[in-house]
């Protein structure tokens, strides 16, 4: 897959608490913007890869984009870990010659509509007795009756175990997570697209945030957002014909192994988030090493999830990311700036698609918080899906 495909268009809507519009309309705004950015007609799109969570279907796009024929369409389950899976599947289809021009997108009214931080979407909320079914790890029959309902609570379980195994106090962990939350807010404060652009956050304000699911507090959690983002991916040859600055896919992958499905509580070790060897393969496929990464955009449902990606992707040793963020940080002058748009914590929660568009902006050199001379960008969701892009 190395350099066989490239991102040629990105688009997004405003990120807000209440879009006042349908998810279909939001998706189309982002996709049409991405097509215009790529310099193609929307009807040239012949492939669609979507998040299974998205309410906007392939058929809704086929009806509205003027496409003559969609020759490849796929979808990826499990929510946020579709993040780089959509890139992997789009690129695979193009590299295999099945499709030429594939759109990937995410559109959601996640604040004004169904809120992922609530469990009523999985456990009914009418009646004296309501059932928790299936074996999903929050909100299933083995967890829901105990009050384990949403991913944010599971990540709190991961976080406390992490502190225990790292041999640090919960207070030390909190300082580290606060450093992440504050730096991402700093990035958002200079990103005009960020929901939190006008809302500063310092350490004291972070610590004053109310406890949500101890040891995680308010500012450890992602925002809830309405909005959409989209990317157009095509072959490297076509990309070079379309624009002078295509962003090449160096590698993209998905990973699934026993109990690695997202938000697990059953994996043998809940402080390690990637399968054996899959990150080594990612770097080998991309022909780069961790020290070659200019900028990283990590899936941050919580500050903890983003922080521990520093370990997953080889920037810090196992159980040492807390020290990395305290000593070196994730800011513009750190060894690897992370979530330069503000991430889910402070730009908006577009289910990881906004991390992909930020990586593209960084490699085009047009990001709001541009890392000077960025050459290689990493996007990843805890090793469950990952992509490396290059100029």
């Amino acid at each position, binding site marked *: 897959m190395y350099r066989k495909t490239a991102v040629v268009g990105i688009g997004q809507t405003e990120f807000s608490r209440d879009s006042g519009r349908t998810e279909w309309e939001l998706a189309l705004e982002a996709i049409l913007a991405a097509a215009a950015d790529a310099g193609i007609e929307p009807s040239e799109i012949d492939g669609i890869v979507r998040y299974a969570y998205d309410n906007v279907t392939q058929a809704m796009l086929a009806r509205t984009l003027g496409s003559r024929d969609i020759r490849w369409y796929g979808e990826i389950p499990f929510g946020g870990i579709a993040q780089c899976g959509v890139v992997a599947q789009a690129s695979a289809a193009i590299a295999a010659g099945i499709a030429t021009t594939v759109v990937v997108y995410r559109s959601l009214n996640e604040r004004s509509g169904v809120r992922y*931080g*609530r*469990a*009523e979407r999985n*456990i009914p*909320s009418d*009646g*004296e*007795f*309501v*059932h*928790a*079914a*299936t*074996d999903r*790890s929050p909100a*299933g*029959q*083995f*967890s*829901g*009756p*105990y*009050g*384990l*309902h*949403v991913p*944010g*609570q599971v990540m*709190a*379980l*991961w976080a*406390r*175990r992490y502190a*225990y195994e790292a041999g640090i106090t919960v207070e030390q962990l909190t300082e580290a997570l606060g450093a992440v939350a504050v730096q991402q807010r700093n990035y958002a404060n200079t990103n005009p697209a960020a929901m939190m652009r006008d809302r500063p956050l310092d350490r004291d304000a972070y610590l004053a945030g*109310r*406890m*949500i*699911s*101890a*040891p*995680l507090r308010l500012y450890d959690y992602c925002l809830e957002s309405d909005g959409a983002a989209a990317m157009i991916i095509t072959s490297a040859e076509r990309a070079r014909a379309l624009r002078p600055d295509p962003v090449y896919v160096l590698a993209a992958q998905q990973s699934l192994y*026993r109990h690695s499905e997202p938000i697990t*509580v*059953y994996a043998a070790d*809940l402080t390690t988030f990637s399968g054996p060897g899959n990150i080594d393969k990612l770097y080998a496929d991309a022909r780069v090493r961790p020290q070659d990464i200019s900028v990283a955009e990590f899936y941050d449902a919580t500050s903890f999830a983003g922080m521990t990606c520093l370990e997953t992707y080889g920037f810090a040793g196992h159980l040492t990311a807390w020290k990395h963020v305290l000593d070196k940080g994730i800011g513009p002058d750190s060894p690897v700036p992370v979530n330069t748009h503000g991430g889910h914590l402070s730009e908006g929660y577009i289910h990881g698609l906004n991390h992909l568009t930020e990586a593209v902006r960084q490699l085009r050199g047009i990001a709001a918080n541009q890392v000077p001379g960025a050459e290689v960008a990493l996007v990843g969701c805890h090793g469950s899906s990952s992509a490396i892009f290059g100029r």
Partner: protein
Amino acid sequence: MLIVPKADALTEPYWQGVKDGKLLLQNCRSCGLAWHPPTPICPACQAKNYEWRPASGRGTVYSFTVVHHAAHVAVARKVPYLVALVTLEEGPRVVSNILSCPAERVQVGMPVTLTFQEISPGVVLPQFEAAQNLRT
């Protein structure tokens, strides 16, 4: 409003065991693995040759969280409450609350033992409580 477990064909023996006062785990007759949550075949050796065996009831707290912000209307008046992960002596992990122990005394690594809690007439959950020698 009360959240109760809904069994399915695969998990029915587990919940029947709970009614009988046992925490049952699938045990592979071929390779000896004990596992949870239930699956149709052994996750280690893929044998279909398993039996349900009661767990010893001894475990340790792997982690816990204290939920202050209710995420479902059914627990809106129960917060704050504690949810723990317990690693059983046999290896598998289960979700539990920790009974008979105030939240501020719960620690990662502390030994716990199996008990049962009737959350409503006829609705029973396996639960864990601080091991006898730690209770005060």
